[in-house]
């Protein structure tokens, strides 16, 4: 496991521990479960990719939506095709780990979080780069919307 400096919020930490607890091949199954659990886009974003931010660093097209409420609560929305389960899995992890947190908690999340899932050898760093890019874009949008 890659050691990181920042601390993870309890939900992300639990996810990282779940990945660490299972042997290699089962980690891919776990990632697949996150892909399957990624919520569908709400009606207001369905077929409205123009309202979302494309994430070209992912190997497959991914669209990201970030909303920050007046009280600072952040809501995340992702859309990626069914034929891109790895990208969906990354999005599912970020959704499970970050959706509904405060802007501050999201901004404190270590950017290299994706390196803590023990997926480097199974998924390859090249593919994991897409997840780091999603994280960076989420933070940038949170910062911008918070003003």
């Amino acid at each position, binding site marked *: 496991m890659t050691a990181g400096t920042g601390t993870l919020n309890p939900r992300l930490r639990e996810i990282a521990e779940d990945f660490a607890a299972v042997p290699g091949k089962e980690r*891919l*199954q776990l*990632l*697949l479960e996150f*892909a399957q659990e990624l919520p569908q886009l709400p009606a207001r974003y369905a077929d409205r990719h123009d309202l979302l931010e494309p994430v*070209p*660093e992912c*190997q*497959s097209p991914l669209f990201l939506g970030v909303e920050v409420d007046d009280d600072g609560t952040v809501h995340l929305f992702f859309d990626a095709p*069914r*034929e*891109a*389960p*790895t*990208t969906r*899995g990354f999005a599912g992890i970020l959704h499970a780990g970050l959706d509904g947190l405060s802007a501050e908690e999201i901004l404190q999340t270590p950017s290299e979080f994706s390196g803590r899932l023990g997926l480097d*050898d*199974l*998924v*390859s760093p*090249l*593919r994991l*780069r897409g997840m*780091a*890019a999603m994280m960076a874009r989420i933070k*940038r949008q949170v910062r911008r919307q918070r003003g």
Partner: protein
Amino acid sequence: MRLIVALPNDSAPKFQEYARPEVLVTTEWLAEHLEDPGLVVAESDEDVLLYETGHIPGAVKLDWHTELNDPLTRDYLDGDRFSELMSDKGISRDATLVLYGDRNNWWAAYALWVCTLFGHPDLRLLDGGRTKWIAEGRPLTTEEPQRPRTNYPVVDRDDTRFRVFRQQVMTHLGKLVDVRSPGEYTGELLHMPEYPQEGALRGGHIPSARNVPWARAAADDATFRTRKELETIYQDETGLQADDDVVVYCRIGERSSHTWFVLHHLLGYPQVRNYDGSWTEWGNSVRTPIRKGEAP
């Protein structure tokens, strides 16, 4: 290359136009031969999880990135490890190995090219790949096959015939095909502010390279275009001649494996080499000349 064909060739009329009809099979052929003992089907995808969501019954998974590369050196597996990998997957040296995958067989062609370096005698691609198999409503399963381990021989990798290195490319300017997107070719795509780079310091292309994006060789249903259509693209438009000594490249050598397959196997060019160092090596190397813009 001597072809020891364990299973019959697919006699589909479209394939007979190609220089080597035996390197392709149709979905119909595969469905018919799926149970044949001499056959192994392997799925190779861009997405590392796609196989787990469902694959052709009996197909093994062959991951381009985590299994075919040496984990330390930027290189492919050596003969020992390739033998280990194939034995572990239950693939014997005399098996008819049919590869297929997502995205117009992009990664399947890459895996096929790597297997070619080890001289596996009978390698074929499923025309239309995963897309066509699914579009036709053919069965998928999530069950992983239990293939008995084989004893695949240790064969030295031959890097001379179908692979080429930077120093050789330096002296080969002239018959190069850059199969990346037009934006990567002209050099525009490295200039996205704030965004992670594609892994190269400079954008552009190798001087004299012609740009033919790899996916032009595929039709809408992910099958290969007909020989006549391919000749129009590579000969009439690009000016390649059938006896040219051609080098193909992209970013890391995967997309160009697809074009290598087209030029060598489908159009029959005798000398086609894949420069797998590609732009991530060329664009970063000291004292290598590059060109920007649309002109070769």
